């Protein structure tokens, strides 16, 4: 496994942005959201209501398509599957489930009490060979 995981300290947590109301998300599907600096994330809601966000750029296809991938599980691990090359990535930590040498950056999320989905503007997990967010 060549991916290096680094978890930045959560103290002074990264700034976050409001993305949309959680009701706007369809369980099992994603949407793309634009970060203030022009980068983009893919935000998914799972069937149990949990919200995840990863870098929207497909690390293999190098296109901004991850938000359009199907969400499912591999051996119980929640995952998103690239709509272009069908590679799967764990939603929790972004590791590549088909090719462990390739991962995808993962962004912290939060659903506020009013139902607004917030996404951090910096990833909590970065992968060495991941394409920039």
């Amino acid at each position, binding site marked *: 496994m060549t991916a290096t995981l680094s978890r930045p300290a959560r103290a002074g947590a990264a700034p976050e942005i409001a993305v*949309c109301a959680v009701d706007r998300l369809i369980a*099992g599907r994603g*949407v*793309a959201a634009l970060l203030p600096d022009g980068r983009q994330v893919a935000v998914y809601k799972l069937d149990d209501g949990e919200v995840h966000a990863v870098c929207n750029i497909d690390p293999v296809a190098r296109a901004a398509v991850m938000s359009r991938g199907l969400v499912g599980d591999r051996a119980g691990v929640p995952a998103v599957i690239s709509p272009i090359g069908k590679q799967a990535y764990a939603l929790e930590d972004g590791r590549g489930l088909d090719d462990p040498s390739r991962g995808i950056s993962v962004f912290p999320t939060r659903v506020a009490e009013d139902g607004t989905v917030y996404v951090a503007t910096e990833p909590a997990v970065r992968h060495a060979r991941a394409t920039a967010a």
Partner: protein
Amino acid sequence: MTEHIVVVGHGMVSHRFVSTLGSRYADADVAVTVIGEEPDPAYDRVGLSAYVGAWERDALHLDDARHSGDPRVTVRSGRLVTAIDTAARRVELDSGEYVDYDTLVLATGSRAFVPPVPGHDLPGCHVYRTLDDLDAIRAAAERAGAGAHGVVVGGGLLGIEAANALSLLGLVPHVVERNDRLMPVQVDGRGGALLCDLIRDRGIDVHLSVTDTVIEESAAGEADAAGGDGAAAAGGGDASASGDAGLRVALTSDDGETDVVDAALVVFSVGVRPRDELARAAGIAVAERGGVLTDRACRTSDPHVYAIGECAAIEGTCYGLVGPGYTSAEVAAGQITGDAGTEFTGADLATKLKLMGVDVASFGDAHGRTPDCLEVVVDDPVARTYNKLVLSDDALTLLGGVFVGDAGPYQLLKPLLGRTLPSSNPLSLITPGAAADSGVGVDALPDDAQICSCNAVSKGDLREAICGGACDVPALKACTRAGTSCGSCLPLMRQVLEAEGVEQSTALCEHFDQSRSELYEIVTVTGIRTFSGLIGRFGRGIGCDICKPTVASILASTSSDHVLDGEQAALQDTNDHFLANIQKNGTYSVVPRMPGGEVTAEQLIVIGEIARAHDLYVKVTGGQRIDMFGARVEELPAIWRRLVDAGMESGHAYGKSLRTVKSCVGTSWCRYGQQDSVAMAVLLETRYRGLRAPHKIKMAVSGCARECAEARGKDVGVIATENGWNLYVGGNGGATPRHAQLLAGDLTDDQLIRYIDRTVMFYVRTAERLQRMAPWLEALEGGLDHLREVVCDDSLGLAAELEERMEAHVAGYVDEWAAVLDDPDKLARFVSFVNAPEAPDPTVQFEQRDGRKVPVLLGSPAMPVRS
């Protein structure tokens, strides 16, 4: 020093000989020249009848028929060896050339025997032996037209196949047999009587105990006038010169009755004779009853000459089957390369035939000729099956058997030939339906029992391959060759795999143990309409990219709900979710439907205007439509608004669904067109548009046999004839191209549509995930014959239900795009960013390359990369 081997003849046995040199003796220092008389390289002559209907020579060619993988081998097709000079060790070709040899291998096979009945050499008389013979029969049948009569002389296995071929060509076949039953070599009297009934039921006229056959010419339409005065009146040469000659075949049986058949053609299939003339002329010993005489090492009387296959009389016996032929090929290859341990040790003469749904099988001492043998018979006139076992006098050892009507028990019993039976109650072994409890299973077979007799592969060979890692049928085929010839042992191979504990999983994915077809049945039976309901009750986990789209497809093909309704929206693959084709940079291409390739000038202008407004790259597709590339997600609704306003609807270029129905111009414009192919293509495309299936479906309609729409390269192909439509199924392009095969001919519009309804629905219902029609048809037990029974004869009683389902689909069809445009909730999904719906994706960029717009991917030199 390189040994030069010349092989005369290029049939299945010759091919096996050279392949064996290539595989088992790859290091032998030899140069091989193969000389074949037919224009084609080695082909599957056992499967000759499969050529009828498909008329596809290449399909019958054996793998690597020209041995291009072995640089030591040269194949020369279409060349006849005219003489052997054993002293000079060279052969002479019809071109006048000479080819020298160190070792000569005769694999000249045999020729069809034509009995010297009066008239046997008239034009209109054929044999059933080579691809060229079948072409000639086809041409004669087409000249004669549907409904003409054809006579097959010979009621053996090949004669019945020939009769079936005539039937497929639209003729009324007659089979003539000298004995009192069909297949007299393989089947006994009572089995033969049942077989005769079953064959007659399939529209073949059977004439038994015919001792005298006389063939005369008669001008077509003047048969009555010529017939009145008997033979003398019929001998004129004019009729044959005009090409319209008919034949008058008089068949007299041993009770003195004479049947007269006015036939367009006669096919002789009374047996074969070994082609030993080259050997005879060269002074090489031949057997008393013909055939090049060899010892068990396949050596002839000349030490430099071997004979293999049907031309060889091994210790005086000619074997007219491919199994012993293959064995002799392997023996000779071993002997020639110095592996002298191999010898011919006997042959398996078992026979199994399934023709027009009639099962016939026999093996061993089928006629009970062993002294004091016992016969156990189950003759069921209601089920129309006849099963017989021949046992030793102590009822312990199996000596042979005959099966007519249902050859089910044959597979497992045949390998037990000459062995002690696993059950003390032999009757239980052949009582229909009881085989499962009888103790006969693949487990009961010893390791040396032969599973594949064509290739002499034993159960032990298979087990060894399985231990070596072959874990499915294709792997077993590749490493043992079992199942690669006639294929009748495939079910047994599966059982061996199972008995060895190799589970043949049909599970869809890790979330469902069921296969797609099983899930389809579950959905229709339980009425469950949600993925969560289905996975909750029948699966586990939350699903994946395999099961979600599969279930989405099943739900779509069993109702007319919109694919983006409710929970279904989350199941769709990205193309179905955005109703467009995702391309490599995440933009989409849009393909409006153009049924049959028809488009109005107005619509063309609208397409042009859209492409200009959105700066799209435009290309005509392979399926007679127009594809616009480079649309961003948020542009799709605007594009579709204009298309819908112009009367165009979604072309489903994205889904696993009906794509296009291609057509030529047919009778409306073409001077050759026989039917209105455009109208039919439009009708079919309109009927099946939007239908979700296990894989994409493409169709085409050609207005005549010139086939400008290339219909036989499609899943469903329709070709006009003078009398209606021929329906072909199971063709496709792609990595493994296949020609579609004839399912039914000369159909009316109504019949055609009903047959397509049934075929397509049956496919939708029973195919596995991502299985196109061609592999589905190949995997279907019983293949094309079975499909024909289901579709044309309604053998499963499913026709009405299949048609109803299709009707429901047709009635419920709604253009998916128009429906999205009318639904603000769905429309809201077509945005670039949920928090900035109008902002174009900054990573989507294009460049002009050679005047063509192409996507630029993130990370390419033209794009700055952030870190």
